[in-house]
């Protein structure tokens, strides 16, 4: 599986928009969209959990080329907390209940648009990483917090 590419992010944006899916980029892929210079392996999407949105997402994923069985599609429609997809043109993690964020609606109201990509606010990216308590996040959090300060200052200057 080659590395995730910009054109694939565009494909996600276009397909999910076409099917009316409510989602946000989250995790390090979201930070990268905001300008954070770091490396990551794949994209993470925070998806609004409701039956209609889940159905729309499953249809969009099939159109993107993910080979979903009926059972897998049902799990996505139901909105399990975490779904890891490696059965398509690129790897994708679907997060329906990220640690550290109470409700999708709150994150949606705080979202940042970057070239049409809906992206979690840095506060939410950091909150979810803090709440996960993983070794790999502990290493990246100080730099990510510094980036938030930089991003906020830069945003204030515009």
């Amino acid at each position, binding site marked *: *599986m*080659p*590395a*995730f*590419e*910009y054109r694939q*992010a565009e494909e996600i944006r276009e397909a999910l928009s076409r099917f009316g899916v409510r989602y946000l980029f989250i995790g390090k*892929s979201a930070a*990268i*969209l905001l*300008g*954070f*210079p*770091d*490396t*990551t*392996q*794949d994209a993470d999407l925070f998806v609004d959990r409701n039956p209609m949105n889940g159905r729309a997402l499953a249809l969009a994923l099939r159109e993107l080329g993910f*080979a*979903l*069985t009926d059972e*897998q599609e049902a*799990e*996505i429609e139901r909105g*399990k*907390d*975490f*779904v*890891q*997809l*490696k*059965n398509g043109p690129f*790897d994708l993690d679907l*997060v329906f*209940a*990220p*640690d550290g964020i109470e409700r999708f609606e709150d994150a949606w109201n705080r979202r940042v648009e*970057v*070239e049409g990509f809906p992206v979690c606010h840095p506060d939410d990216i950091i909150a979810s990483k803090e709440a*996960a*308590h*993983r*070794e*790999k996040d*502990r*290493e990246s959090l100080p*730099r990510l917090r*510094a*980036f938030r*300060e*930089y991003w*906020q*200052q*830069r945003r204030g200057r515009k």
Partner: protein
Amino acid sequence: MEMIEEIPRDWLEEFEAAAKRPLELRFRYAFIKTYKPIMDDAPFRSFDTMADYRRWCEENLPRWLGYARV
């Protein structure tokens, strides 16, 4: 600008450099692919709760991947 001055200089230079790059180029620099044992060996996984997922990571993935909780 007081807050920016508190950011380590090398990080600040990296942030400034990244801000000048178009998004497509930032993607090219950011996304890499290396094989993650066990994690990459199944085409689909799902977990009812995030706690289940975290537990699965701790019980199945090599510690050096960094997914264990601290």
